[in-house]
């Protein structure tokens, strides 16, 4: 059975530090609704995820969780999608839900799944996969400093820009762009942040050299597989987006970032 058009399931566990990602992803809700799309949010528990995917039959599954090369885990670090395989330190001996994502676009915001699990999902019928083939860094903080989830970057900690760059892919997709075009716009967003941390208004922050380095690292290990020219969502209501960056000389420099920031 083909997935339902314009249905998105977002799997948002909160345990084990994941609230730092999930609280940000919740902010996509208004954007989806404004465009006439149907987002379904789960609390990341295994049963809720199964129910949401089986009952609502989404085209897009966007999931946050901890991962290794052969496993994606949901709430309470419960293995949710896995394939048989092993890497340096982790071995997985059972297959879980690989067929569940037939003809869907799966975006796993987790570490390492791009090495093996993403390929297996495509082999088992997923139409496209986006994830990371190395460690995805979602936060950096001066020791002893822990900001509340979803707070904006500050000189001592950033738990925002990394996930914001990943979310930019979904913002593109909710605007009816292809996966390839959406990834490109996320790349521009990452470059914008890197510029701010390297030469812009955040350059003297204590975490600046780390944040720019980890943003680059995350983007270097972004892995996109399957039909990347596919446009998974067809928004019913076009919402124009103001350009947030403009190309200038040696790269992409930010223009009035504060004005256009979401």
């Amino acid at each position, binding site marked *: 059975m083909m997935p339902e058009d314009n249905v998105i399931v977002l799997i948002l566990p909160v345990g084990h530090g994941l609230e730092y990602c999930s609280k940000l992803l919740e902010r996509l809700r208004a954007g989806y609704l404004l465009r006439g799309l149907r987002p379904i949010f789960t609390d990341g528990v295994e049963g809720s995820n199964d129910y949401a995917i089986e009952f609502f039959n989404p085209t897009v599954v966007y999931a946050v969780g901890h991962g290794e090369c052969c496993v994606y885990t949901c709430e309470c670090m419960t293995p949710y999608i896995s394939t048989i395989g092993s890497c340096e330190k982790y071995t997985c001996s059972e297959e879980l839900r690989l067929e569940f994502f037939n003809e869907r676009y799966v975006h796993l915001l987790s570490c390492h799944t791009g090495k093996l699990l993403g390929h297996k999902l495509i082999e088992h019928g997923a139409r496209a996969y986006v994830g990371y083939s190395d460690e995805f860094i979602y936060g*950096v903080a001066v*020791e002893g400093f822990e900001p509340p989830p979803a707070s904006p970057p500050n000189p001592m900690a950033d738990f925002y820009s990394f996930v914001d760059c990943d979310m930019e892919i979904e913002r593109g997709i909710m605007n009816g762009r292809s996966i390839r075009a959406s990834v490109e716009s996320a790349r521009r967003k990452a470059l914008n942040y890197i510029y701010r941390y390297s030469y812009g208004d955040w350059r003297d922050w204590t975490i600046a050299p780390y944040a720019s380095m980890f943003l*680059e690292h995350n983007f270097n290990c972004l892995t996109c597989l399957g039909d990347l020219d596919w446009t998974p969502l067809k928004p019913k209501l076009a919402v124009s987006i103001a350009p947030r960056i403009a190309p200038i000389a040696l790269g992409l420099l930010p223009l009035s970032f504060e004005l256009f920031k979401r």
Partner: protein
Amino acid sequence: MERVRKWVYSLPAVERELPIIFLEGRYWSPNDILSFIEANPNHPISAQLLRMLSMRIAAIGSPSITEIAKMRLLTLLEKHPVKVYTLGVLRRELSPEDLKREIMLGGSLGRSLISIQERRIAEIIGRFR
């Protein structure tokens, strides 16, 4: 000397403390270079440092730029230790010691950070006009 001062002040504060050049058996940060040249304008090492900056060379012979990149990361972690949070199953938090180990032992994250730093060295030296 004005060129060196202009270059150093164009860099982010933290970057000014990190090694960028290896010469005469030691690592030099932009701050080290500036203070040495200011104190010893006619010293042969000052001339050599200026030559390396102008020619955009970080090291002659050994150690390689990779070693300078490693030293930058270790210095950064020593001076401004941070904790890093990841979405891995096995490692969810990395302390400054974990990061140092990763860099020294050449884990995949360590290798990635070193190669980013190698590009950063070239970029910073390239800003010297």
